[in-house]
């Protein structure tokens, strides 16, 4: 009896060993390699994306009369939804895509790579803004390497798209956010190449991220933007159409990926349409 017990123990022990061994071998074959740290800013794959993509946009669409632009936002860690969103955009024949920020949820280098690889599935050029979640840890450093400067602009269809970093709380209000000097420079530079302006940001004025002490000053500054059409933002995880200052200037809020909708803007010579798309 005792011997049987020992034998039984030996065989169950061997089975347990085999299961543990098998599991570890499975991990070895599938693991992603040596991981230094979630915030190590050791970026594998494509970097400097915004500069490359803006060059393509400016080259292809500099003088195009009609533009179709998809605005997506707040994909966070909803990767499956973001993938579906990319697929949906790919079917709708847009000229380029703007991601309004919050590419990640906790700004780890892995998350940046996941969202980048999803966005690289787009069949058209795209640029991405930095959202407040993308600042966590060393996230802003990862963003700057992977995408580029937090404030940037490009011209397509004789329209200047000015993308502003408005995440003032992430800097504890100590940085020039929003950067009025950058705005002024953009309003006055290359004025022969554009007639209209669209402002894009992650967090809108009056939101919990914006430096709300300068909400009115920000609006006054926008008066210098040549042919200002509208402002587009993300951050709120809801679709919205509003006049924040009750003065006719439209603010369009782009929903998050979890809610499975975004907006496509069709710009013509005499105006624009902006349509909410569900997928």
């Amino acid at each position: 009896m005792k011997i049987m017990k020992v034998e039984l123990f030996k065989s169950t022990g061997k089975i347990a060993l085999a299961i543990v061994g098998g599991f570890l071998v499975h991990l070895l074959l599938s693991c992603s390699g040596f991981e230094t740290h979630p915030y190590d800013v050791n970026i594998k794959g494509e970097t400097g994306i915004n500069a490359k993509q803006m060059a393509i946009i400016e080259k292809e669409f500099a003088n195009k009369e009609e533009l179709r632009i998809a605005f997506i936002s707040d994909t966070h860690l909803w990767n499956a939804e973001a993938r579906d969103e990319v697929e949906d955009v790919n079917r709708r024949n847009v000229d380029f895509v703007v991601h309004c920020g919050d590419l990640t949820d906790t700004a780890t280098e892995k998350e940046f790579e996941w969202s980048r690889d999803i966005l690289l599935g787009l069949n058209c050029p795209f640029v991405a803004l930095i959202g407040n979640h993308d600042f966590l840890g060393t996230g802003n450093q990862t963003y700057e390497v992977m995408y580029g400067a937090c404030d940037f602009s490009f011209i397509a269809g004789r329209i200047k798209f000015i993308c502003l970093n408005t995440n003032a709380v992430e800097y504890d209000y100590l940085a020039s956010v929003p950067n009025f000097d950058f705005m002024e420079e953009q309003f006055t530079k290359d004025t022969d190449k554009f007639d209209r302006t669209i402002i894009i940001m992650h967090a809108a004025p009056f939101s919990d991220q914006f430096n709300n002490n300068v909400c009115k000053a920000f609006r006054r500054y926008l008066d210098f933007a040549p042919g200002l059409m509208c402002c587009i933002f993300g951050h709120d995880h809801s679709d919205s159409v509003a006049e924040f200052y009750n003065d006719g200037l439209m603010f369009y809020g782009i929903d998050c990926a979890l809610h499975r909708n975004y907006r496509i803007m069709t710009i013509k010579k005499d105006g624009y349409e902006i349509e909410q798309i569900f997928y």
Partner: protein
Amino acid sequence: MVMLTCSLHVMAGDSLDIQQSKFDRRLERRQNAWLSLIPTHFVIQNAGNMGTLSAGIGWSYGKKRKWETELLLGFIPKHDSSRPKLTTTLKGNFIPWKIDLSKIIGKIPEDRWRFDPLTVSLYLNTVYGHEFWKSQPGRYPDGYYEFMSTKFRLNLALGERIEFKIPENKRRRHSRIALFYEFSTCDLYIRSMFQGSDVKLKDIIGLSIGAKFYTN
């Protein structure tokens, strides 16, 4: 430290000829307690979300020395960030089974090579730098990033190891040497699996290899 070793020496001499007094026994107990703080091993490993390379000291204890606690200092190179970073890690290991390899492979001498088919580790890593906070700073509204700390990472690792006992006549600095590997992941990555519907286990698992040099 000098005083401690001196008194140790005196105590050893005293206990030879006279019976231990209550005081002596207490002193010995206290000294033994302090002696248990002397590390039992030196450990070095790569990766594991604590830097490219980490090194530190450890204590093995418990029945059959199935438990270990380690304190490691890690180094993260600059890569594309603004500067290199240091980390410290407090790591607990549990080694449920220890197998003498002579019982499986006949040719090798008894009690020389040992195989531990599973190690389970839980460790807390701290990364240093002003970019990282232990809980959300006051500038954020309540509950803004309440779910996380950017400074502290809780990690979980599963691994295996093989240990070689150095023959007593050949020992110089160490008595045993263990080589190990482990697969690890951290709290943020486990969270990402729940948040993102298509984050797979293979996306969040990293490999580490390392060695331990024991003196006990």
